[in-house]
């Protein structure tokens, strides 16, 4: 890899051992990716709040030790200077205010507060959500970013036209410290062209439909860039909302490895299918029909057999205000079944607006809760006694049964809220 004089100085230790380790990691990682050089980035999102899952392994809750070991991949604790790049904390292990609901002890909560404060001292924006693009971190078209969080990566590449690979904890931390990222993959024009055509024949209208289509597309294309077209996407539907694009991308990044998609007329980098394909023939074509939809819904519910629902999870990726409002309207003046919990997850900044708008009060009056900063899959928590859960998110339906060993149902937000009111998933 060709390094700039400034890179060489960082690597030589002119800016201290933390920056040197960060640049060394970017070089080794970039070499494996085939990058010929690094590129400047001033928009980095990572996950560096450490809870007991990590602290137990090291036997310390010292945030500097945890950052050096897990974020910088060092064996010793080093001094870390303020971060060079504009940096943002993604979703983390706990709700800063409602950790009691998660079963977290006061000691562990205090340790995570320390971990968060350590990041704030380095200059990290504590947006604490998997959807920074909903709360003020909106990269511009063409901006080179270094983001973790597969659902956010696919969103900013596809919907905003920003440029990022799917970074991990160690590489995003390295970019925070150096303001550099390997210039390869989705930073390059050639990698952003579609190679896989998806012909959508079955109508895709609702947010539930977009979740299902995304989950199916991920299975079909794996890590290829798909372009979507077909009669199922036109007509009465109009164009997908930002929420539907958020759910679609998150689902496709869960079942497969989709980091970018084109939806001509909606996403900014291609106005037509041929333009998305860069004038080439697609390497593969997949057809989405009624059978594909039904099989995908069955696959999303594959872990579920019991219809008594203990827990309903809404807000993966973190819910927009419109999604929180929909839950509030569905719950208004009603009461959850005694045996069922319903938790809505939304970015903290949106929670503040939801409180002001009366949505949080309506939700809590029904016996449900609104949480921020975390989710059951990331924080690995559930309401006590949960065996069966339901969600409106294909991504959460994919991950939570694997991570927590529970059964999972998938359906529309209305079906999920109704299940929380009835305590039961509707019969087929």
């Amino acid at each position, binding site marked *: 890899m060709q390094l700039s004089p400034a890179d060489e100085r960082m690597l030589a230790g002119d800016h201290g051992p933390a920056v040197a380790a960060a640049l060394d*990691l970017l070089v*080794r*990682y970039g070499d*494996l*990716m*085939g990058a010929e050089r690094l590129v400047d980035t001033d928009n980095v999102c990572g*996950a560096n709040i450490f809870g007991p*899952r*990590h602290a137990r*392994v*090291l036997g310390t809750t010292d945030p500097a030790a945890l950052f050096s*070991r*897990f974020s910088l*991949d060092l064996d010793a604790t080093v001094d870390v200077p303020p971060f060079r790049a504009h940096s943002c904390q993604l979703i983390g292990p706990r709700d800063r205010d409602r950790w009691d609901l998660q079963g977290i002890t006061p000691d562990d909560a205090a340790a995570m507060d320390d971990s968060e404060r350590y990041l704030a001292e380095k200059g990290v924006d504590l947006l604490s959500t998997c959807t920074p693009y909903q709360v003020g971190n909106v990269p511009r078209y063409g901006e080179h970013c270094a983001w*973790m*969080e*597969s659902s956010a*990566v696919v969103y900013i590449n596809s919907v905003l036209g920003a440029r990022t*690979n*799917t*970074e*991990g*904890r*160690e*590489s995003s931390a390295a970019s925070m410290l150096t303001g550099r990222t390997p210039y390869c*993959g989705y930073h390059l024009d050639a990698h952003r062209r579609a190679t896989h055509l998806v012909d959508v024949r079955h109508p895709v209208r609702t947010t539930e439909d977009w979740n299902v289509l995304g989950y199916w597309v991920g299975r079909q294309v*794996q*890590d290829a860039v798909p372009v979507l077209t077909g009669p199922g996407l036109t007509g009465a539907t109009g164009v997908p909302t930002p929420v539907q694009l958020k759910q679609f991308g998150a689902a496709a*990044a*869960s079942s*497969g*490895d989709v980091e970018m998609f084109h939806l001509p007329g909606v996403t900014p980098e291609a106005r037509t299918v041929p333009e998305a394909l860069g004038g080439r023939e697609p390497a593969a074509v997949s057809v989405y029909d009624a059978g594909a939809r039904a099989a995908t819904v069955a*696959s999303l519910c*594959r*872990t579920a057999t019991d219809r008594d629902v203990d827990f309903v999870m809404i807000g993966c990726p973190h819910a927009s205000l419109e999604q929180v409002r929909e839950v509030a309207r569905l719950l208004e003046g009603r009461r959850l079944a005694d045996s069922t919990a319903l938790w809505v997850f939304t970015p903290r900044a949106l929670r503040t607006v939801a409180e002001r708008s009366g949505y949080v009060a309506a939700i809590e009056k029904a016996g449900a809760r609104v949480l921020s900063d975390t989710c059951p*899959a990331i924080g690995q928590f559930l309401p006590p006694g949960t065996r069966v859960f339901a969600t409106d998110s294909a991504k959460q339906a*994919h*991950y939570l*049964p*694997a*991570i927590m060993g529970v059964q999972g149902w998938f359906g529309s937000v209305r079906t999920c809220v109704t299940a929380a009111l009835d305590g039961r998933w509707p019969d087929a």
Partner: protein
Amino acid sequence: MPELLRGRGVVAGRASGPALVCTAPVSGWGGIDPATGTIVENGHPQHGRSVAGTVLVVPGAKGSSGWSGQFHLAKLLGTAPLAIVFGHMNSKLALGLAVLRVPAVTGLATAGAIRTGDGLEVDGTAGTVLIRREG
């Protein structure tokens, strides 16, 4: 008879261990339990098998951006694979290899010859995999 497969070395170094052949890409976060190395992704063909102490033979990495973080945790808990033989590189696998620092080889034309349980000697410097099969 030992069988020598030739590919391309990606991370230098040598390691030996029993093969775990995965027929689908592996997820990290939400894909393995770092406490035991067990593959936990529902519907994965090798669901329930453990990557701990194996030579992981895998088409590639997929899923959450927590891939490297989860395998990093596995490394510190002693449940990581000893070497990786893979088909397809992406950012998740590249960062995972940079953090795991275990030998890695790709580009074996005859990777299908490897079966789970085979004793493998991976040489990431030479880009070779030696199969030692009992019986």
